[in-house]
């Protein structure tokens, strides 16, 4: 009897505790809302007082497998502490910096660092988890001197309802990567990469004619990357994935069909993509690094991967603008400030990010040091400065360049405007994966039907999210 009652009571207690806990979790979100704003609009705009004693935790310290970058981080922390001796930067390493499961878990558990790494596309998720502090009042020309030179379309990815939640650290615009060696072998001019899909088809045919398993053009079609590249290619032609309010699909258009038709023609009419499809990151890089692939759509840091990890040569890879040239998919990463951080923590975080990522000549823009550490200098990434900042950055970069900067001249010269990914990108990409995969694996694929199906599915997915 006793044990029976005991058990029943403990079960009840457990259940009650559970309810209380989840109730507490609900309410804590609303109660902690005000403190960032309360911290005073009067002094929020002022830079961090060097006398202020504050500890701020920051993730994405480079891992041990990247010793040079790790050492740079340590040196930068030491240099930063000369300016702000009372700030303790508590570094947390981890690779990759953002892993979806761990990222979601830390947001749910509010265990993210005070200043935490994220992708441009994550802001919505972070806000839904009530995980970000509004830093609009803290960021100005005094705290971030380069602010006026930062591309507004990049800052826009970190804003919601007019409030700023983070600062960018790197970004990329997609373009056309190509293998200069294969271009030469196929009798193409490596200084003039194709800029339209018609030119790509011409070049791809010639490269594929080299034989020996060489493909002219390649594209991803799995793990949502097919949808991601579909989006990039649609942007190049001037299309959009969703309507402006993000509630309806907007890709079932002439441009949208053109993207699928291009892939279909490259695969079946020109036979320039090879029989192996269903590719995903990093398959295209592996193929290009082994001189089996002529062209694909990608980001500048793919070149770093091909050289550092796949042991290719910088000389062999060139980059041109996004085919179509109307707009280029823009992505990147940033640091967001955890909700509930003290004003001094936010200021210290901004000071650190400004020092490490946003000051020309310092931190990541200390090109002389990067060169000295044997890391590449001269790639068009990050790419968020405009105006005077861009000019200064380009000069500094050219002075220490270790990679053939002229190989990216066609990409830089075109300066295609950046366009950010749609809201709820991953859900949309997942649907488009199927359409892309179908045109690449099914000779009888019906582009119109595929796109109509994808449209209705995306509309369904978006409706479900309302």
């Amino acid at each position, binding site marked *: 009897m006793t044990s029976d009652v005991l058990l029943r009571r403990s079960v009840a207690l457990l259940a009650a505790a559970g309810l209380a806990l989840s109730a507490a979790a609900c309410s804590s979100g609303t109660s902690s809302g005000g403190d960032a704003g309360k911290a005073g609009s009067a002094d929020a705009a002022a830079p961090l007082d060097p006398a202020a004693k504050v500890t701020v935790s920051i993730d994405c310290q480079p891992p*041990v497998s990247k010793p040079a970058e790790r050492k740079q981080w340590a040196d930068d922390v030491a240099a930063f502490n000369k300016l702000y001796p009372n700030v303790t930067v508590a570094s947390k390493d981890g690779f*990759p910096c953002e892993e979806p499961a761990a990222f979601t878990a830390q947001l749910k558990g509010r265990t993210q660092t005070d200043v935490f790494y994220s992708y441009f596309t994550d802001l919505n998720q972070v806000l839904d988890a009530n995980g970000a502090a509004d830093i609009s009042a803290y960021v100005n020309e005094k705290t971030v001197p380069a602010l006026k030179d930062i591309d507004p379309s990049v800052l826009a990815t970190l804003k919601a309802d007019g409030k700023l939640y983070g600062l960018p650290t790197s970004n990329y615009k997609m373009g056309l990567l190509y293998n200069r060696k294969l271009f030469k072998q196929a009798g193409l001019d490596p200084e003039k990469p194709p800029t339209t899909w018609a030119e790509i088809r011409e070049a791809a045919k010639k490269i594929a004619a080299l034989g020996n398993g060489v493909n002219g053009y390649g594209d991803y079609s799995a793990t949502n990357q097919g949808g991601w590249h579909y989006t990039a290619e649609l942007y190049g032609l001037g299309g959009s994935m969703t309507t402006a309010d993000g509630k309806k699909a907007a890709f079932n258009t002439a441009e949208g069909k053109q993207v699928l038709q291009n892939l279909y023609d490259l695969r079946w009419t020109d036979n320039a993509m090879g029989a192996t499809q269903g590719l995903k990151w990093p398959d295209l890089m592996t193929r290009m690094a082994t001189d*089996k692939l002529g062209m694909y759509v990608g980001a500048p840091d793919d070149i770093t991967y091909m050289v550092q*990890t796949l*042991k290719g040569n910088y000389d062999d890879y060139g980059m041109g603008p996004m085919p179509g040239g109307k707009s280029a998919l823009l992505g990147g990463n940033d640091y967001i400030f955890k909700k509930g951080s003290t004003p001094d923590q936010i200021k210290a975080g901004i000071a650190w990010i400004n020092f490490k990522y946003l000051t020309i000549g310092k931190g990541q823009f200390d090109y002389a040091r990067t060169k000295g550490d044997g890391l590449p200098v001269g790639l068009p990434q990050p790419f968020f400065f405009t105006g005077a900042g861009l000019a200064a950055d380009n000069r500094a970069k050219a002075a220490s360049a270790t990679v053939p900067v002229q190989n990216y001249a066609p990409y830089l010269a075109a300066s295609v405007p950046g366009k950010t990914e749609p809201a709820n990108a991953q859900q949309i990409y997942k649907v488009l994966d199927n359409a892309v995969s179908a045109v690449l694996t099914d000779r009888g694929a019906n582009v119109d039907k595929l796109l109509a199906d994808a449209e209705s599915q995306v509309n369904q997915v978006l409706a479900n999210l309302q």
Partner: protein
Amino acid sequence: MRTLISDTQLNRPGGRRAYRIVLVLVVLVFTLVFLGPLYWLVTGGLKSTREVIQNPPTLFPHQLHPATYREAWSQLRIGRLLFNTLYYAFGALALQLVFDVAAAYALSKLRPVLGNLILGMMLATLMIPAAVLIVPQYLTVLDLPLLHVNLVNTPWAIWLPTVANAFNIFLLKRFFDSIPEELMAAAAIDGASPLRALWSIVLPMSRPILGVVSIFAVVNVWKDFLWPLLVQPDPRNQPLNIGINSLSLGVSQNVVIAALAIASAPTVVFFLIFQRNIMAGLTSGGLKG
């Protein structure tokens, strides 16, 4: 011992030849299927980056690059990852041996009120996909109800949930059930406490099943992926599976292969040394039909 095919049948001339052919074939195929990948792993780690990703693949490394192993060891911090994995595995084993044996003993021999209901509730958890509970479980570990302790980044986050292993409790209970009641009754008449009876009667008889449960306990931790990914965010505390997989994205493929070879070595060697005991435990243990 008599099996499906009798010795007399095998000793016939035709039988003997057929047996020879089957034997040779089985040995060859098994060696290829189970040792082949290991060979590829060890030699792959000796190849250069370009050779590993070249097409067609090579059977022997063109040039030996033993330095890849050193690079893998230091860049992926394998020593640390291995230590973590063993630490988690044996900690989990110790806790399971204490708590699961005690629970199975209570359910089998002490038969408390509601014992069957408790057993049923435990067995019910076998039906729940681990991935389904992963977020509520994570939230629980972040802030244990009533105690308000955060276990993330501590080994307890891995150890304690492994105790809730219904399969092990079930195996142990089934084995304990087969220990004659008269022995227990005799011990009780002699005035032995339940703990003493467990220690001096039940446990000595249960060595085979304890071996089996131990292997399962260690292997479970050894194999787990999603849970340690969430509860050990600090790379210094991560087990092998997580550490290697996440770092593998940023280093060359030959280095990853070398890392995998190093990571596989300890358990494979351990297994080869103790295979007789492990096999005996697994095959004779309480898993009889």
